[in-house]
């Protein structure tokens, strides 16, 4: 598809003046489906005051931030997330990931970005059928060319982190929903990506499983990972340092709940645990 950003970006223009550059920088992003009257603007941003055309979404996310995206059904949350995860391409606008314009990457480079920089957690788990938990978690490492022994070691560690070391040989149809989602989390974090994107990771889980998954995500953010997650639940959003609200493909509110370079609010609240966030990950309640 044709993208508007045809001009190559001079590196100087991309790098902001401040010391930590945003991992995610989005400018004028729009996404529409269909043609003519049937066009759906899933992402549109504010309207141009002159001719009423969509200006697109602008968004910066700092390194280490924990952002919750909220909004009613159909407001464009998943659309935004898929573009951020390089799974989809915007209709117009630019997306700079770590200062690189993703629109200029070819298929090969995109798969590298997906593999190395992004861990994606889907609402519907999206585990590979008929494959054991261990093999699931090893998969991104295999695509990264990690050797078998090292792959196994890291996959074991990731599964242990989500508390599923004893379920390594189970296939998706032998796991509960919460366990499947934890396998998906392990798979997303096993490559140690700088950025974790989660589309309603707890949407299909009961409150107990929700707490387990959130505790893992909190821990990951505490170790410096950037997290963006979509949720409908205020309880989940309370874990985030920043909450965005989307309505009709537009960001209508942007609320900061905690500092970027601190622990996530829930962990911060538990004073005693703050200093050992790392150890807490595995043993959440």
């Amino acid at each position, binding site marked *: 598809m044709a993208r508007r950003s045809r001009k190559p970006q001079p590196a100087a223009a991309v790098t902001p003046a401040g010391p930590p550059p945003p991992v995610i920088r989005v400018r004028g992003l729009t996404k529409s489906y269909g043609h003519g009257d049937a066009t759906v603007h899933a992402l549109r941003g504010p309207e141009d005051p002159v001719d009423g055309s969509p200006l697109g979404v602008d968004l910066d996310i700092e390194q280490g931030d924990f952002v919750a995206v909220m909004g009613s059904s159909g407001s464009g949350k998943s659309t935004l997330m898929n573009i951020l*995860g390089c799974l989809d391409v915007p209709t117009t606008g630019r997306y700079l990931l770590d200062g690189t314009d993703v629109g200029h990457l070819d298929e090969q480079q995109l798969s590298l970005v997906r593999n190395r920089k992004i861990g994606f957690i889907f609402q519907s788990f999206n*585990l590979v059928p008929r494959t054991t938990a261990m093999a699931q978690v090893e998969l991104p490492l295999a695509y990264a060319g990690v050797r078998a022994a090292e792959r196994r070691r890291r996959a074991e560690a990731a599964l242990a982190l989500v508390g599923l070391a004893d379920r390594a040989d189970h296939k998706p149809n032998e796991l509960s929903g919460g366990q499947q989602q934890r396998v998906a989390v392990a798979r997303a974090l096993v*490559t140690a990506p700088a950025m974790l994107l989660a589309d309603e990771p707890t949407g299909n889980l009961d409150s107990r499983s929700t707490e387990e998954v959130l505790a893992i995500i909190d821990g990951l953010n505490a170790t410096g990972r950037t997290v963006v997650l979509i949720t409908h639940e205020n309880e989940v959003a309370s874990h985030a340092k920043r909450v965005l609200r989307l309505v009709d493909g537009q960001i209508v509110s942007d609320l900061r709940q905690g500092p970027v370079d601190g622990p996530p609010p829930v962990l911060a609240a538990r004073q005693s645990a703050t200093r050992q966030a790392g150890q807490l990950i595995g043993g959440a309640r």
Partner: protein
Amino acid sequence: MIRFALAGLAANKVRSGLTMLGVLIGVASVILLLAVGNGSSAAVKNSITALGTNSLTVSSGAGGGARTASTVKKLTVEDARALADQANAPDVKSVAPVVTTSAAAVYGDISYTPGQVIGTYPAYFETANQKIATGDYFSNDDVLNSRKVAVIGSTTAKQVFDSEDPIGKKISLGGTPFTVVGVLATKGATGFNDPDDVVIAPLPTVQNAFTGFGSVSQILVQATSADTTTAAQSEITQILMGTHQLTDPSKLDFRVSNQTSLLSARESTSQTFTVLLGAVAAISLLVGGIGITNIMLVTVTERTREIGIRKALGAPKAVILGQFLTESTLLSVLGAGLGVAVGIIGSHFSVVGIKPVVIPSSVFGAFGIAVAIGLFFGSYPANRAASLRPIDALRHE
């Protein structure tokens, strides 16, 4: 990558197995059917060389389709004697008039009817390329004295005497006792008749006992060499036109046929047979190939979501393409390999009396085509799926 592919195939064992079976049957039938066709034409070729290329057969009846000769004169011993005249027929080496009949051979309490009872001259043995295995041929002297002696074919010997030595034994043919003086070497069946199921005796003896002294059924002529058969053929025609008082060469009451032309006609028949078998086999191979295509299409479509997941995890397009191509290639290579094995093992058994002879190029051809089909038809759906944007693959129903 092979491990991924094997896992993929193992995930659906029945389907993979059936697809492989389709390819197996296709490849095996190509190899086997072509081998049978080839075997039968090889058998015909052998019998050409066995008969000798310089023998000619004169038989009575109109030639060239013109059945207008007013009176059809049968061939006689006098005709044969005229052909043996060196002055008129310098290219004729030997002449053997032949009568054939059928009679039961009785030995002790065994009664067996051989395929043919032939009465002829000793020259017949060389002309018809009949070699003796044990005992001896009968001689010109036996012919002149109408002795009741016989040379029997190996099949007849086995049927009548089983493991006994037939030489010197007396068998009764239609009530006349014959002494067996020789057993012929086995020529082997050509798939159409058994040349070893014969009893050969001196001409006058057979005429006396069975056919009477009138006409003979054939005259077997041997030309001096393979190169002179054409010359010998025209000499024979000239002489017989004289003895039969014929003037118009288009209205003959006899036929001179050349063994080679007779057999090349039969060879071309068996070649047609091979082509036909090949066509049937090719169709089954094609069906096997369509099976692979179908399975790959279903597999890839069914696993589009999975492809989306893998791409979202950062699988490069080449890896996904490679996985599906390896799967389809593995299917076709395994299927074709087993098919080659089955085809080659199967060709060790003879089919309706024909010993199949495997054509090496058919083995490589069938294997290659099966693998190529797997690769080609596997690559189309795999490439389509691997080119999808991850989100589109993930949304696939």
